[in-house]
């Protein structure tokens, strides 16, 4: 028997090293062994000025972490065709701002369209009071014009906007007739024009007198969007905000000002709210079921293939470690169907090994020596493994819908399943073929030499 060559040994130790790194990444952030407390090291790289830090916690989807998903129909019939896309964009910005006001991290606002019907999906992970969130999203935006308190702004540069602009001028969204984007004829820079109704014009005249050479801030939903300096008293109810706008920012500002009410009306058509306890329960049960299944698979493999089965089980553990590491690093948001996809992929991961081992048995029966049979088994099974898994990947991709085609499913549940399935297949081919082969080359030779 030839000794194991150096290249194989190098690969073997690389695999062991890789598995060890994955194991560390998958440790809980804090754990206790024999009364000693350990902490998982942070994943951060500093390279010159470049620093990279990664949050290693698993991300859970709405169904596991709890939260709400809201789907709205958008009514676009009130807008002319050419304005639809800008109106949709400004609607999305408005809703995003409102959701952010609500203080939810990782909220997600998406525009979708289905056979001509535009929709808005709002995902609010971990939201506690959904009813209030719904109210906030659908409400009419509040525009207000507030005067500057120069004492505050001069004294502290870091004063909050609310402190710096304390005085309400009494002008609000109902006084604004419209806002337009204009080009200044003198320097051809874009400007945002405002037009007030008669009552607004009066209030505005008063305000510009009071705040001449001071600033007036315009707030939308209590968030300041611009704070121009008053350069002259304006009495005709027509004002111009000039500043360093490019055409895009000017358009955005004008859209926001026009959006006193939302630029398009929306109608809630679907709502899903999952309480946090339900999700926690699901995770525990899923993990338990997965472990029981795993023990069954382990026993089955050892019972059937003996020593080979044991090595396949080691590969399967490495498979699990690498997969979970990728979930953390990419990161892949885990949903409940995603967990099922992962558990299913564990069952499928041993497929490559079973294919190979059966092939080896045939070769051994045909009278080939063990190590020749092993290499032949891997070589000949490879075609089947490749072809069979290509089929699964094709369906996986159709479920995942990577190009966001509207005629295919776009639901997070289905995609969560598809993504874990696809990732699972690629890694299982790697561990089932490459890892098992090199483990066997090193471990089995020692075993046989005994």
């Amino acid at each position, binding site marked *: 028997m030839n000794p194991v060559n150096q290249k194989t040994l190098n690969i073997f130790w690389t695999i062991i090293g890789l598995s060890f790194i994955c194991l560390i990444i998958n440790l809980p952030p804090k754990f206790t062994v024999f009364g000693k407390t350990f902490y998982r090291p942070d994943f951060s790289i500093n390279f010159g000025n470049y620093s990279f830090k990664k949050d290693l916690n698993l991300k859970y989807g709405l*169904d596991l972490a709890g939260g709400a998903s809201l789907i709205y*129909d958008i009514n676009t019939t009130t807008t002319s065709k050419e304005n639809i896309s800008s109106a949709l964009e400004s609607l999305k910005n408005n809703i995003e701002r409102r959701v952010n006001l609500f203080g939810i991290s990782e909220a997600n606002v998406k525009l979708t369209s289905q056979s001509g019907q535009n929709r808005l999906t709002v995902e609010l992970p971990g939201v506690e009071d*959904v*009813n209030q969130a719904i109210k906030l999203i659908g409400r009419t935006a509040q525009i207000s014009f507030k005067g500057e308190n120069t004492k505050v702004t001069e004294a502290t540069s870091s004063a909050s906007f609310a402190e710096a602009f304390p005085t309400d001028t009494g002008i609000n969204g109902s006084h604004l007739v419209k806002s337009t984007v204009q080009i200044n004829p003198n320097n051809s820079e874009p400007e945002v024009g405002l037009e007030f109704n008669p009552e607004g014009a009066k209030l505005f005249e008063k305000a510009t007198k009071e705040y001449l050479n001071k600033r007036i801030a315009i707030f939308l939903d209590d968030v300041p969007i611009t704070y121009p300096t008053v350069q002259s008293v304006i009495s005709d109810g027509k004002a111009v905000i000039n500043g360093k706008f490019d055409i895009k920012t000017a358009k955005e500002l004008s859209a926001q000002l026009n959006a006193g009410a939302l630029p398009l009306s929306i109608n*809630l*058509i*679907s*709502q*899903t*709210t999952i*309480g946090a*306890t*339900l999700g926690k*329960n*699901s995770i525990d*049960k*899923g993990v338990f*079921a997965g472990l*029981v*299944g*795993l023990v*069954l*698979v382990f026993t*089955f493999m050892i019972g*059937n293939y003996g020593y080979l089965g044991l090595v396949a089980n080691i590969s399967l553990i490495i498979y699990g470690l690498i997969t979970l590491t990728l979930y953390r690093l990419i990161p892949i948001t885990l949903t*409940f*169907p995603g*967990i*099922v996809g992962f*558990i*299913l992929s*564990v*069952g*499928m991961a*041993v*497929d490559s090994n*079973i*294919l190979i081992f*059966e092939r080896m048995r*045939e070769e051994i029966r045909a009278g080939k020596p063990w190590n020749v049979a092993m290499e032949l088994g891997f070589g000949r099974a490879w*075609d*089947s493994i490749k*072809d*069979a*898994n*290509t*089929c*699964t990947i*094709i*369906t*996986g991709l*159709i*479920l995942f819908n990577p190009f966001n085609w509207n005629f*295919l*499913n776009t*639901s997070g*549940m*289905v995609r969560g*399943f598809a993504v874990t*399935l696809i990732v699972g297949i690629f890694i299982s081919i790697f561990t089932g073929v490459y890892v098992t082969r090199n483990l066997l080359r090193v471990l089995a030779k020692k075993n046989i030499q005994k």
Partner: protein
Amino acid sequence: MLNIMKFRPLFLFVSCFLFLVSLYSIFKWGFKYSIDFAGGTIWQLQFSQDIKETNLNKIFADNKIEINSLSINGKIADVKLKLITQDEKLKYESEIKKVDPDVKELRFETVGPILGKELIQKTIIAIILSSLSLLIFIGTKFKDFSFGASAVLAMFHDAFILVGAFSLLGHFFGAELDALFVTALLTTLSASVHDTVVTFDRIRELKRKNFRLEWVDLANQAVSEVIVRSINNSMTIIFMLLSLVVLGGLTTRWFAMALLIGVVCGTYSSTAVAIPLVLFWKKLKLQK
């Protein structure tokens, strides 16, 4: 070598039987659609103490809301209603809070009926798209259209039996068709083809070595060589799914069940449907 192909009449009988049972159930009992398809509301509430069905029924009756179903499990109540608006929900919620101020909402889902129609549309498109791509992939891979067509037909066989099984499960055990069922259906398609391709691969390999051999003998030899692998592999997947069905949460029980049926069907059909179909095709060609 096992002469498995001599059981072809038996396979035909089993498949026809399953097919007819599925067909009967679908026409006789139809399906139970979840709100993903039909639209409606699911409301799951956790009360601070055990709740009686009559108390809850009264609240909904007082408000003249028709409830489709109400199931109570200790402190937890599952209510299914028609589609309700946000304003209606707030109203009912305040009524329920009068009974138990500490009630917690575990889950609330409303789905408009339009979304359900779209889901059906998208499912059909996804199935057509996957079968076409698999047909093309297998057809070109084996340079033989009869292989591709047989694999795809076997795949439809599995999909149809899975759909039929859910009609039966729906009638007797209340299993519902939802978005996850669609996912399971598509996964079944791929699992079915996965297994078939492994057997086809072996036939192709044997054909290269002994090109004079009859198709039936080739098929027998290929099947007897891969059947252990096919069964062993399915066993590992079945272990994982079965533990999910038995031990996993209620939310995904039927999902795992659907996958389980799909995997078992897929293993059966690659030997018992796909290969006999190829043989049938080859025989037809010879007779021409």
